């Protein structure tokens, strides 16, 4: 009895430790995305959030309002400012007036009053910039390109890859599972052999072929690319699942008048649903996080992992943490959605002795 209790408490302790190890990195990401830089950028960062700020989230969710041509729209915060050019011409910009500033052409152009523009020196322009404010928007071109489009593309690619992979792999795996054991083993082995080569090694030749087919920046192309590494593993998982389902089960259905297809759809696939759910989660996560093929096959419209890579390599850890949280949220959602189908004991009592 005492041994059982010891085993029980040890299990709890291990489970807690394991859960903590899993959740800890996500918590750190969450904390960094909501912490002030002073709190994180020190040799002794705190474990809890001391000074919460939404600034990092605002930085990635909001951008300056721009004109159709991409120029930032500034406003005069207060007062009136008169600028003059080398020829002595003057233009006055008043409080609340919207304008654009371009340092290349040294041009200040009012948006409210048509034709009111003046070219001044770079020095004057810089001084004037200090008096200007910008308005933010959630759906500016920059946010669309940096966040929403990559997010949408990642979702599309991951969902399509999962669906197509299951449509292809489930029937194929069923057939393999009903082959003589040695042949099934050989086929599964052959499938897995294709995964012996690292993606990083085969990505370039595959990408070259895909690009020649015009699949650059294409959702369809990326789905095809993601099927390459995922189909063999999915088939492997599903062959194991279908092998566990007794042939007698479908034969019973056929004895009761169902066709093979009916037996497959009504009996075998529902019973195999836990395995299919595991496979779906596996494929979805792989596709959601995939990076190498996306990097080769994307120029203008990348996926979210590519975007995070860009932020991490060129920016601060704060927007990177916020982006990473956005990458994590759908994973949690999908996992919770599919985990309910991961039930054991589906076959208990399915076939009478």
């Amino acid at each position, binding site marked *: 009895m005492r041994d059982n209790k010891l085993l029980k408490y040890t299990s709890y302790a291990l489970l807690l430790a394991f859960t903590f190890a899993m959740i800890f990195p996500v918590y750190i990401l969450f904390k960094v995305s909501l912490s002030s830089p002073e709190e994180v950028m020190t040799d002794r960062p705190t474990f809890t959030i001391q000074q919460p700020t939404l600034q990092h989230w605002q930085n990635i969710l909001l951008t300056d309002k721009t004109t*159709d041509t991409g120029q930032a729209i500034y406003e005069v915060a207060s007062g009136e400012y008169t600028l003059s050019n080398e020829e002595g011409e003057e233009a006055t910009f008043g409080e609340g007036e919207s304008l654009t500033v*371009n*340092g290349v052409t040294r041009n200040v152009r009012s948006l409210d009053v048509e034709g009111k523009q003046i070219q001044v020196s770079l020095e004057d322009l810089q001084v004037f910039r200090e008096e200007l404010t910008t308005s933010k928007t959630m759906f500016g*071109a920059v946010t669309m390109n940096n966040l929403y489009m990559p997010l949408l593309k990642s979702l599309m690619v991951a969902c399509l890859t999962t669906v197509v992979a299951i449509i292809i792999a489930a029937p194929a795996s069923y057939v393999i599972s009903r082959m003589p054991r040695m042949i099934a083993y050989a086929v599964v082995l052959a499938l897995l052999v294709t995964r012996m080569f690292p993606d990083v090694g085969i990505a370039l030749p595959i990408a070259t072929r895909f690009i020649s087919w015009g699949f650059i920046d294409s959702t369809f192309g990326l789905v095809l690319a993601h099927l390459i590494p995922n189909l063999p593993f999915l088939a492997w998982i599903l062959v194991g699942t279908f092998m566990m389902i007794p042939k007698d089960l479908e034969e019973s259905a056929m004895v009761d008048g169902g066709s093979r297809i009916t037996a497959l759809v009504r009996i075998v696939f529902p019973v195999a649903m836990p395995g299919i759910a595991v496979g779906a989660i596996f494929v979805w996560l792989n596709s959601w996080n995939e990076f190498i093929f996306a990097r080769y096959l994307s*120029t203008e419209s990348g996926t979210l992992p590519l975007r995070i890579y860009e*932020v991490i*390599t060129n*920016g601060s850890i704060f927007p990177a943490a916020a982006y990473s949280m956005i990458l994590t949220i759908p994973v949690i959602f999908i996992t919770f959605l599919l985990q309910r189908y991961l039930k054991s004991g589906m076959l208990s009592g399915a076939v009478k002795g």
Partner: protein
Amino acid sequence: MKKMRTYLTVLTMSAFVLAACGGTDDTNDGGDDQQGSDEAGETEGGDDDILSEEEVTEPSEDGVLHVSFGLGESEWAVFRTEILPAFEEMTGIEVRAVQVESGDLVNKLTAEIDADNVTIDMFAQDVNHLTGLVSRDLVEDLSDYRDVVPDSVIDGMMEVSEFEDELLFLPYRPNVEITFFNEEKFDEYGIDLPRNWDDLLETAQALEEETGQGRVAIKGILEDDTVLHMFDFIRSAGGDPHQFNDEGSIEAMTFLQELWPHLSEQSTTANWDTMNQYLENDSIYLGKNWPFYIGEFHANGKDEIQAYAGWEGPEGMSHALGGEVIGIPRGSENVDEAIQFAEFLMSQEVQELLVSELAWPAVRSDAYGLVQGYQEPYFEAIRDALEHAEPRGNVPYWENAEQIYIDAFQQIVVNGEDVESTLNNAAAEIEELREDAE
């Protein structure tokens, strides 16, 4: 199970609908699809200084120029809101600019050129990552466009753009590593900034004694960053890193061997990226790096991280010249437009804006920007260091040689092996590569 089927059906339908709406995406960074020839020429005056009317060519068939850069967030903001709109307004050529990291560019272009489907018309690439582009024959020869390069472009940038007398790239942005230090910590411990090798060793030892661990770092990650630091040490000792077993090289590697035990253990993982993180979280107090992260130091409230040009060796100061050049992929269908954009980027007005807004040193000696505020001291450091900048040297065998330098660093500095014999072996290997290349 019915629910599962419903979910799957909904998921499938949604995904197909989304895919149908998505397909080959047609997005761009500026959100400026409407921008085009209708706005060309609207800007009055000033434009003639940048591109004359004769220089403005007709836009390509689709009027779109696809370019790639490897920029940080604040740098993108200046390009998106000022540089690209100004160019588009003047020429009517729409520019779609995308982010491609310098480390990814070679493979990406290889795939596109092999597939005969080049989607990038022009790119900016790190000057120390050009060999792969050249050895794989991925870029157009731009020798016929020498005259678009302004006379005032600094010599070193022309040198890095040429390979065996062919102009394969156009200079656009010089850069140099500066030495960052934590001013508060140096004040706290009363330690002066190291100005020469002896100071550097003393500083590393003093900080180690004061804090119980090494606080000075070099990029000892055993990657290309490490090689650039080796070049700086060797050249500042009067050595020739391409020979690698001369007196200067021996002196420099001997010094590094002596310095290594007093450096931060994070030197083994310090590269262009992590060095900033180590400085920012106060793990190290002194380290050399590229200046691209200055804006983030400021934004993150780390103004105590200041910079200066660095220390001298026995024969003076040396910094590897970095920065970016412009290249045009072989097979680009918009070469004329790309040249026009390159010319625009090299123009005095754009260079002055880059100096003023981003504290980038100008590629031409006649571009004077106005660096203000927190950027000023960093810009001073960059200018000082740039005076001692030397190109790494475009040798055709570089891709194979790099590993020889890294191995020598590991053997001598990390493992503490004999300096002379290791360098002799490495030099012999480099000589062999040189002979093969010839």
